[in-house]
């Protein structure tokens, strides 16, 4: 027993692996948010007037709105004037033009396992590395451009491909969509822009790595992915942040446009700093992610592994407008200590013969609260729509909570919508079986949880799946005993 306690203690004390900070000169604008700040961000990025106007409209809308409170989380009050909305770690003290990346930054990303030099990188993955408000480097850009694929930071895209960006930006998530989308639209900084031309299969996985480093800032990235007719892309997203006692705000928007016969696979391993065991600090992850399946027979798949963040408020959604389009949502959300997650999806069926699948696995431990919230809507003309949702929750410990809030709204009599959910704890028989065979309880729980989440983990690209599995066991260590 004593030994077990030792182990549990050591694990409880285990620090968040990515909690270090990078000492790099960062240009941070003054705290606060007003129209001048919006203009300043826009000016720093050298944006055209239409984008500035878009930001200003969003800002003016945002100030008329109130922060929503319907989610099953206790969101601490956010002082939007105490946050700096732009932090640039690549800015040198005086000289304007910058050629090389600060070695400190290189080191940081190396430490995170994201080498920015192409020769070191895992072959088959192109990376856009974003720290605070700025994209540090995008690898394999040239190689991709040979095929006509555009993969760069969104600021660069605004400069280089303004017509493309203007055509799609804000069409999937308009700035009036919700409070945080309006905030993001007003102050968004770097994120990635991906354009896959017609009939192209992207030869490598594209990935963006987000890192918050500077203090008292928030990250407001914006990602836009456009997959043209008959193309395919797999996109990965990873994120970490240093350990700080204050909450950090992360309000992102991801927009995906899928045209005729195209396919997009979007995978996330979210590992923002979850706060300490007492619930101090951690990232407030309030994001809007949505894909619009505009084309016939288009396909979009969201896969997410959520282990980090103090508060997660995230609903990667799909609007299935194209006839015969298919959408999938696979999610594993793990909460421990004082984390709170309210996550799920929306599937809006508009086109005929559309199909969607939702598989959500929630795991709660410690004193955490884990909720699934999802909407399946079948509109009048969505003949033959089909949805299957399955939401399972696993409870580890008697202080935590697991909740399911599905909404179904069916307006078409040819639709078939199914939903099922279960909540239970780990089966004693399974644990006993493992114990009997010499597997410690801790390990057995790890095995069972991994098996439980397998449906989702299988959907992740290889490298991510390994990382996610590791993360899952780390996040849950110390929960048994």
């Amino acid at each position, binding site marked *: 027993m004593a030994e077990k306690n030792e182990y549990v203690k050591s694990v409880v004390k285990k620090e968040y692996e990515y909690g270090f900070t990078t000492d790099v000169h960062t240009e941070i604008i003054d705290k606060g948010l007003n129209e001048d700040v919006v203009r300043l961000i826009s000016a720093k990025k050298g944006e055209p007037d239409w984008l500035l106007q878009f930001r200003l409209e969003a800002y003016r809308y945002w100030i008329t709105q109130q922060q929503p409170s319907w989610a099953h989380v206790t969101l601490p009050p956010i002082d939007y004037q105490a946050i700096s909305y732009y932090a640039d770690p690549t800015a040198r003290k005086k000289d304007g033009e910058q050629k090389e990346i600060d070695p400190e930054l290189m080191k940081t990303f190396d430490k995170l396992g994201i080498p920015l030099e192409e020769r070191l990188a895992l072959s088959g993955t192109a990376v856009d590395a974003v720290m605070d408000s700025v994209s540090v480097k995008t690898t394999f850009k040239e190689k991709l451009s040979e095929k006509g694929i555009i993969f760069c930071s969104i600021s660069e895209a605004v400069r280089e491909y303004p017509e493309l960006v203007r055509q799609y930006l804000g069409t999937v998530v308009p700035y009036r969509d919700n409070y945080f989308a309006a905030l993001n639209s007003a102050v968004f900084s770097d994120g990635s822009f991906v354009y896959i031309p017609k009939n192209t299969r992207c030869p490598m996985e594209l990935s963006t790595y987000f890192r918050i480093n500077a203090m008292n800032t928030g990250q407001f990235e914006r990602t836009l992915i456009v997959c043209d007719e008959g193309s395919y892309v797999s996109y990965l997203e990873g994120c970490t942040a240093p350990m700080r006692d204050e909450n950090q705000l992360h309000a992102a928007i991801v927009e995906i446009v899928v045209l005729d016969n195209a396919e997009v696979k979007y995978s996330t391993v979210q590992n923002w700093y979850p706060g300490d065991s007492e619930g101090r600090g951690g990232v407030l992850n309030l994001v809007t992610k949505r894909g619009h399946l505009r084309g016939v027979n288009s396909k979009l798949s969201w896969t997410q592994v959520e282990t980090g963040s103090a508060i997660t408020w995230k609903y990667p959604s799909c609007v299935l407008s194209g006839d015969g389009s298919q959408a999938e949502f696979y999610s594993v959300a793990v909460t421990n200590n004082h984390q709170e997650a309210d996550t799920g999806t929306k599937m809006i069926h508009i086109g005929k013969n559309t199909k969607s699948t939702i598989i959500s696995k929630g795991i709660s431990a410690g004193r955490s609260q884990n909720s699934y919230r999802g909407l399946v809507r079948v509109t009048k003309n969505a003949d033959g729509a089909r949805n299957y949702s399955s939401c399972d929750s696993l409870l580890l410990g008697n*202080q935590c909570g697991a909740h399911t809030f599905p909404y179904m*709204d069916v307006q078409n009599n040819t639709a078939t919508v199914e939903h099922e959910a*279960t909540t239970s704890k780990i089966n004693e028989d399974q644990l006993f079986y493992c114990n009997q065979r010499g597997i410690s309880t801790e390990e057995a729980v790890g095995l069972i949880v991994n098996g439980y989440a397998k449906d989702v983990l299988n959907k992740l690209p290889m490298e991510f799946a390994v990382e996610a599995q590791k993360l899952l066991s780390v996040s849950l260590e110390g929960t048994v005993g």
Partner: protein
Amino acid sequence: MKSEQQYIELYNEVNQLIKQKSCEPMNAVRDAAFQVFRAQGFPTQKLERYKYTDVPTAFAPNYGISLNSAAINPSQYIYSISAAPIDIRPYYNKIADAADSITALNTALVHDGILVYVPKNENSDVPIQIDNHLSGNISTMLNRRLLIVLEQGAQATVIINDKGGVHPDDISFLTTQVVEVFCQPNSHLDLYEVEETDKSCSRFSNVYIRAERDSSVRHNSITLTNGLTRNLCDAYLVGENAQLTLNGCVIGSESQHIDNNTLIRHCAPQCQSDQLYKYVLDGHSVGAFAGKILVDKDAQKTTSQETNANLCASPTARMYSQPMLEIYADDVKCNHGSTVGVMDEAALFYMRQRGIPEAEARMLLKNAFMGGVIDQIPLRSLRDRLYVKIEKRFLGEYEKCEACRLCK
């Protein structure tokens, strides 16, 4: 605040009269309830639990208020609240949600109610039936109040039957109903609500159940014909090993609107709850089901099952389904499932192959679908009656029942 205003004025006008006709325990909570209603007004659709029903519009027409008392056949266990054989103060308005505007309005306006009281270890062998006939020449609002108290080891079966009557076309009726059920240890209650009104009737029913140790409660809510119906049922399992069954079936056609909203709160360990709601929607009817199972931190070893199955039989019918779980204990087994779908084409084909006309095949399938709920009714006479009624309903030859044993 438009819809509310007429009720506020009405109360100010008639509250003295109501108080005269009523009794002390009911008057004691009247003014406070009215203040709640005045402060809140009617719930809007922005409120999560009223998302699917437009309450202010339903209450907007100018209704007269009925101050007639229920006619009670002398029977052993049924009384009017004003002539209660027990002190009702520990029960009256104790578990009803004081913050709910419709409950508050009912508490403010109701002048008398019905008490079903079964003393310790007694068993009311004959089902107690409460009929509510809606007919008349003026649009009327009825406020109904029911208090069911089963003492330790008591048993009872209560049937509440809402029926429409003959009335001119431009006349409409609105009923608010608040039912409070107290099941003391080891008692057993079967509560059935059968609604067979017509499209001019709106019904707002709030049922509150408190089940103590080893008690079992079965609540069936059956909506055959109606105008607008909103049934809320909050059940609290406060003692160990309490059992609850909440079943419902709904047949919707034309412009019927049926909204069932339930909350089952497991406050004590080792309780069990089962829930099954089935809807068949035709025409441009709207169905809504929102059921929440809330398991408290201490309610270990809870088993709970929630099922909602729906059949949309016309292109314009609309169904909202929202089965929710909110769980704070770890040693539980909770499931919910919900489906919205169409009739099984293979089954239809099979029957047509064997010479059954399509319309009849569809009717048979719908009947079988509803059977899932009706089969569970232990009271045989009611079960048989409902089968006949449901079949007639699906055949479109539904009439106000003639020679029905239940309604006579």
